[in-house]
């Protein structure tokens, strides 16, 4: 079960409180009535389904009820970051590496000597 940080509540909560809401950063065209079939297809139907980092929306449905965005690694299910709706896509290379919190035995060997 995932542990998800809600950027509005500023707390890590269990996945049970959340609902996934699909890909993030897909804006509904303001002139939607006038767009071409191809543009509509791209907006409504086409998704990447990446192996690796995905930017996706979550809703804290059993909490503050807000929609927010997250960057999650679809392989490890690790959340790289979560941020409020409307904020720009974060530069993940600039983020502190959460991977640093994962220790390996190699990291421990020195301490054990």
């Amino acid at each position, binding site marked *: 079960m*995932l542990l998800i940080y809600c950027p509005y509540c500023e707390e890590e909560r269990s996945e049970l409180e959340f609902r996934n809401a699909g890909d993030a950063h897909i804006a509904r065209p303001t002139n939607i009535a006038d767009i071409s079939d191809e543009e509509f297809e791209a907006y409504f139907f086409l998704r990447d389904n990446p192996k690796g980092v995905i930017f996706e929306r979550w*809703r804290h449905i059993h909490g503050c009820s807000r929609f927010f965005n997250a960057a999650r690694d679809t392989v490890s299910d690790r959340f790289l970051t979560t941020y409020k709706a409307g904020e720009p896509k974060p530069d993940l290379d600039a983020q502190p590496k959460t991977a640093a919190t994962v220790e390996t035995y190699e990291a421990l060997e020195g301490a054990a000597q």
Partner: protein
Amino acid sequence: MSGVNRISGAGRLTPARTARFTFDGRTLTALEGDTVASALIANDIHLVGRSFKYHRPRGILSAGAEEPNALLDVSRDAARRQPNVRATVQEVFDGMKVSSQNRWPSLAFDVGGFNDLLSPFFAAGFYYKTFMWPKAAWHSLYEPFIRRAAGLGVAPTEPDPDHYASRYTHCDVLVVGAGVAGLAAALAAAKAGAKVILCDEQPEVGGALHYDSGTLVDGKPGYAWAQETGKALADMDNVTVLTRTTAFGYYNHNFVGLVERVTDHLAAVDKTLPRERLWQVRAKKVILANGAIERHMVFANNDRPGIMLASAGRTYLNHFGVAVGKKVGIYTAHDSAYEAAFDLKKAGVAVAVIVDCREQPGEAVLEKARHLGIEVLTGHSVVNTTGKLRIASISVARNGGRGARKIAVDALLVSAGWTPSVHLFSQSRGKVKFDAATERFLPGTYAQDCLSIGTCNGTDDLQATIDEALAAGELAARAAGAEGGAQVALTGQNAFEWTGGMIGAAEGAGPDTTVKAFIDFQHDVCAKDIRLAVREGMHSVEHIKRFTTNGMASDQGKLSNMHGLAIAAEALGKGIPEVGLTTFRQPYTPITFGAIVNHSRGSLFDPARKTPMHAWEEAQGAEFEDVGNWKRAWFYPKAGEDMHEAVARECKTVREVAGVFDASTLGKIEVVGPDAAQFLNLMYTNAWDNLKPGRCRYGIMLRDDGFVYDDGVVGRLAEDRFHVTTTTGGAPRVLHHMEDYLQTEFPHLKVWLTSTTEQWAVIAVQGPKAREIIAPLVEGIDLSNEAFPHMSVAEGRICGVPTRLFRMSFTGELGFEVNVPADFGQAVWEAIWARAEPMGACAYGTETMHVLRAEKGYIIVGQDTDGTLTPHDAGLSWAVSKKKPDFVGIRGLKRPDLVKDGRKQLVGLLTKDPKVVLEEGAQIVADPNEPKPMTMLGHVTSSYWSSNCGRSIAMAVVAGGQARLGQTLYVPMADRTIAVEVSDMVFFDKEGGRLHG
């Protein structure tokens, strides 16, 4: 005396504390603290079951959770009977009944043993090849036969009378396994001030110290140190020690599932205690101290009762005080088994021989064996065994030599070395790496915040294990934020350094294809089966596993996986890492459905939502139907009426007099704010800014793809306030849909959404006398047609309480929907009923509601639509604004597929024979004589007997339906073909005058 094999002065149980139990009807005496396995062996019983496929006699192989053979049926009483219990894990309690499984008529003489003689026909994969022809025999012959033969135990037939508990908890450091490593790590983490949970599957802490008699920790005998340390930890406020608790699953983000067995070992059970407790632990750091599991040797007939793992033999002797035999042989590839011989010899048990397939065992154990006068045959292998229901002798031959020497034994302890338990590490999605020098898979790349220590990490030396554990405990505590001071130092010493180990088939497994050298005892998989799988073209370890079923039994191959892998690698001519390991999955050992289902049983399985009038409806004898989680009154049968008669009466009564209907389950959303009308303009196809306060409108909601998502009546109470209703089942998703657009696409709009479904009780009063019924109860609202016409809403009072009164109708009759605060629902209902009943009105349920709306052609979203219908398909083009620049779905509606001709459209259907009622879901065709597959035009969505029309009525989606009015189509059924005429959807009061009555 608690069994002939109990050795006075040996073991840690108290001789005076006995418990009696039965095994296959025979009463036996055990000691408190015995497992079923140790108690049976104490009573000289090794034969405990028959194997799955060949029905071969089987005994107890291990002394722990890895046991593949000794699966028994254990019961406390008729309802508390559990099949497939591992005898090596289940503790004996006074009065327990134990039975063997998979044998008939008796354990000693089993008819199924015939299978063993037929085994040439039962080679691996025979299921896939044998039961192919003729096809028809599958249902009548093969499947019933396989089903009867499949499975070991017999499932209990009575409901489980026990209850189970569930806890969620958080901790800094979760330590799994309370052997030397786990205890030391927990101690270091606890002394640093971390909140620690330490769990272990056994009844006491200690792990391998249960049997490893020569170990000293902190200068004390290992087991004694473990008990002292366990107690000291349990006494600390920041530590929880859970014994009899298995960590069965490692899930995402350090979420670990534990199951604690609370009462299964007790003779007298306190009924207030749960049988098991499920712990769902979220740990900042997890320390895995899972230890290692000993492997058996793979040689011919290695499955006879009396053959067991060397460490198990030591456990039974050193912990339970039980000798596994009177003349014990040892067959090993690893030094650790020598210590079993030493322990037995010291306890006065004859050791026949130590057969070691290695040329050069460890010098220290060899020297000790010589000193104790035990014969050691190095470079030899056991090539066969004899003994019908228990091992009687072993045949030993020089490796590569001819001629075997027969040695009489009544037990044989075997060891091929140790497999590190990387199960939880692997479940955490960590990647294992193969250590070629020691031929074992060890934790490699970590995926989660955990550390492996001790033997599960490949650390063999005791002092190294302790140092590693102390460092890991402190590191984990610090990383989790603990700031306590005390550092821990401990010393540890083994009696002997161990070397050796092998994987795969030993000499005695033979190269030929008839020898039964078992790898997987529970599924009767032999070395030859793996070779056969490779010969037949299975080259992936996953394919070999499935073809042979190696490792697929309930023990999940804890003993067999490495052997199977090595034999496959050899047959494939590849290295072990290239062949690869199958994936470890949760659960580590089987867990009960009771623990998983837990409280979610019976009425707690799924919450039932009940309306404020539910009690009244129940008292009136209503039948209920489930709509989502709601319990809705379905119909109100009078004495002697069936459903059909009750619904026909209710339908007539509503149209002739009036009816009262509980509509409280309708979803309700309060939409408030200066931009509320603008928001609804975007969410619905209709226009809302021109709706005046005090008026209502039927609205259709689409998704952006243009398909109908929901519908409902929306009332405007004020310029900035709307009362939105949704379908009963749609309320949560409609609110989610609205919130989604409001928060993420239209955040500039000043609008607030609030679910008010449960705040309002809704009483629909419908029929010619509806106004007369409610008028005297209403204050402050003029109910006349002029002041309060169809599709009006007003706030006032009814029966002295506030109401939002709607003039609307889902029946086609003059109608009102009385919304009152939920707490007043039943009182207002009863007041309305007190007026309605004397006038001859009735209460009606959802079935009548469905028929009445169908008579008027009103659709139900989700019944007449299915997520692929546009408003135009549903005949609702009038409700789609052509002037609005935008609404959700506006672009989707213009998609080429949605505007093309021939789409399925909603129409009415009238059967040529008015008495025939169509089946909902039935398919519709144009030509009933067309050969199959026929061209299907659509299907029936709603179909009823209409007492008001005096005939059947139906709605259907039909390709190009609106252009087919008047056409005759056909509904082919299994027994006949029904002719129907396509009609419009209004079957009753086509002019609609009754609405305005």
